[in-house]
């Protein structure tokens, strides 16, 4: 009897599943995001689209990165979270993501989502919809800057002057925690974007340019100069990015090159009203200011069962009102330019910086091949501690590049 009832339930379940179940994933590590999706985003969609029943599976953020490789091939959900740029391209090249250019065309997304369009495009087609992004830049202690009469730098010379002043007064200019490597890549990206610009940077990311190229010398010169003068905190290779916040909280360090997600932590640490933000300063006046803005996105797996409803869901998620709702909870920016401007002061600056920028890079480990990123970032970490090994480090990274890109 019990068996029979299980069978019946299973049968009924399949029937309802056939009547428009949309399976989606959620990989945010933010509990408020889970709540928002469960209580607002999904019910709103279901109300507007009667007959569609959305099922959300929540994954751990890190575990998701390996899980997705398995389920995309076997039994994928209908809509998945992922990251735009090279990480997306990896699956596009395998034929595992669906071309959704039609959604972009039909709902006028090409103009509304113009800022992130290039990062969603491979071979002239769009393979997903961007949800949110956030700015990177230098977060600094306004009280410390005021104490020593310092202002926000506009050029690298200004920045060097600030660093020298702080160092003289016993304050380490920059904090950082490179234990998990990626924070070092933020420095490389910005220096390279400011010295050589976007096209060169992307050429490097795509494996077309050598890491021993002369044009990179200046990047390592400036970076090495900062490291040799002790402008980064000591022993940063022992610290995670979170632990790297501590010197800034207790006033031992004054600046942190980081993504906007750092603000919440610094405020909780008691720095509300004492934090400022400035854009990474200009190094070469002839190079336009490109910014880093990692974009989180949603995609339809090519083996998804319910692609029709998935397309509706993607169009729904691209809408200005939904985007700002999701972005607000995450402390990020909506990618839709019709979304109302954010109210938070850091998001406001970020919005301005990103919309005025010449273009957006994703971040080193999202823009280049995963293995290249890993080996490159190990080299960057080493360089920040042992800048005198520049030659060997670049040679080693170049060896990896040659093997991976076969060029």
């Amino acid at each position: 009897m019990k068996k029979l009832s299980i069978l019946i339930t299973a049968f009924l379940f399949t029937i309802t599943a056939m009547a428009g179940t949309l399976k989606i994933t959620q990989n945010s590590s933010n509990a408020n995001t889970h709540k928002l999706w469960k209580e607002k985003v999904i019910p709103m969609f279901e109300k507007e689209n009667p007959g569609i029943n959305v099922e959300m599976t929540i994954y751990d953020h890190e575990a998701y990165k390996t899980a997705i490789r398995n389920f995309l091939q076997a039994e994928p959900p209908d809509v998945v979270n992922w990251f735009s740029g090279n990480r997306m391209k990896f699956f596009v090249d395998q034929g595992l993501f669906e071309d959704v250019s039609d959604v972009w065309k039909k709902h006028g997304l090409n103009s509304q989502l113009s800022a992130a369009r290039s990062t969603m495009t491979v071979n002239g087609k769009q393979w997903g919809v961007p949800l949110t992004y956030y700015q990177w830049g230098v977060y600094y202690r306004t009280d410390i800057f005021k104490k020593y009469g310092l202002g926000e730098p506009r050029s690298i010379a200004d920045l060097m002057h600030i660093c020298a002043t702080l160092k003289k007064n016993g304050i380490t200019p920059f904090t950082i925690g490179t234990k998990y490597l990626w924070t070092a890549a933020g420095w490389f990206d910005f220096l390279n974007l400011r010295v050589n610009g976007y096209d060169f940077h992307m050429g490097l990311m795509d494996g077309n340019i050598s890491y021993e190229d002369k044009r990179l010398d200046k990047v390592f010169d400036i970076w090495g100069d900062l490291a040799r003068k002790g402008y980064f905190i000591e022993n940063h290779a022992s610290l995670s990015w979170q632990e790297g916040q501590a010197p800034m909280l207790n006033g031992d360090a004054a600046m942190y090159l980081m993504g906007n997600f750092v603000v919440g932590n610094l405020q909780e640490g008691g720095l509300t009203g004492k934090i400022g933000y400035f854009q990474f300063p200009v190094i070469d006046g002839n190079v336009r200011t490109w910014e880093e803005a990692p974009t989180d996105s949603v995609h339809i797996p090519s083996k998804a069962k319910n692609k029709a409803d998935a397309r509706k869901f993607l169009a729904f998620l691209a809408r200005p009102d939904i985007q700002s709702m999701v972005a607000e909870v995450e402390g990020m920016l909506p990618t839709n330019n019709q979304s109302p401007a954010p109210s938070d002061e850091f998001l406001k600056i970020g919005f301005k910086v990103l919309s005025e920028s010449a273009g957006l890079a994703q971040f080193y480990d999202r823009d280049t091949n995963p293995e290249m990123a890993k080996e490159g970032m190990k080299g960057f970490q080493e360089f920040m501690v042992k800048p005198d090994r520049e030659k060997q480090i670049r040679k080693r990274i170049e060896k990896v590049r040659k093997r991976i890109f076969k060029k």
Partner: protein
Amino acid sequence: MQANFWDRNQLKLAPVFFLAPAMLLFAVYVLYPIFSSLRISFFEWDGVGEMIWIGFGNYIEMWEDDRVHTAIKNNFIWLICFLLAPPLSLALGIFLNQNLTELKFIKSLFFFPFVVSPVVVGLIFSWFYNPKYGLLDSFLEFIGLNPLAVLSNENIVTFGIIIAALWPQIAYCLILYLTGLAGLNKEIVEAAKIDGAKGWSMFWNVILPQLRPATFIAVIVSVLGALRSFDLVAIMTRGGPWGSSTVLAYEMVEQAIFNYRMGYGAALATILFLILDIYIAWFLIRVWLNEKGRL
């Protein structure tokens, strides 16, 4: 006649049936993965897309890969340092093997690290080594020395991790030796005493030979522990700084899982497997000779 078949062959068939479930599981979960990963090691494969046959390409690359050299060097350091575990725990065991009630409590404290999960051990030691807020540096500062960033110094990081790993390893060997010491033949010890043996000669000629089985097991678990070390490296440094504390097992996971290189990861696994094989073969031969000697 049919009914008699079972009766006739019962003695031969019964062991097969009893062994079958275990053999089946062994085949599915141990033998198949070994051959499957051996096969993958001849391909270039990102885990998702097409598998490209490259023959011994992965092995040739390994030959000139600096990371692999570092990993093998570190595995060797692990091996040497882990061989300290048996003598250290023997010394500790002899000290603790006294009939004092107070020592019972202390004994249990020595077992403690063995019970704790390696993740916890790794975290505790990471905090202990923290160059700014860790206990180690508070101590160094107290005696007037400069702080030492153990986990971000490429020259000492491996030793830092090994010390953390030795903590539970010594506790493990200690258990083996305490059991061994409890089972000493008192008559032999008495006889030796009458013959005038004491101190070092007593230990070397009378006690230690009786502890041979315990020593044998202790050396084996230590060597295996050193070669398959992975957890503490993953927790404490992730192979860093800049890959200087990596070991073969960690490098394998990093290549396969994080770098999307299943083939190369499988090739590393094969090499590790071969190294372990040499050792296991030696172990089995010794066990076999031992048994034969007794028979």
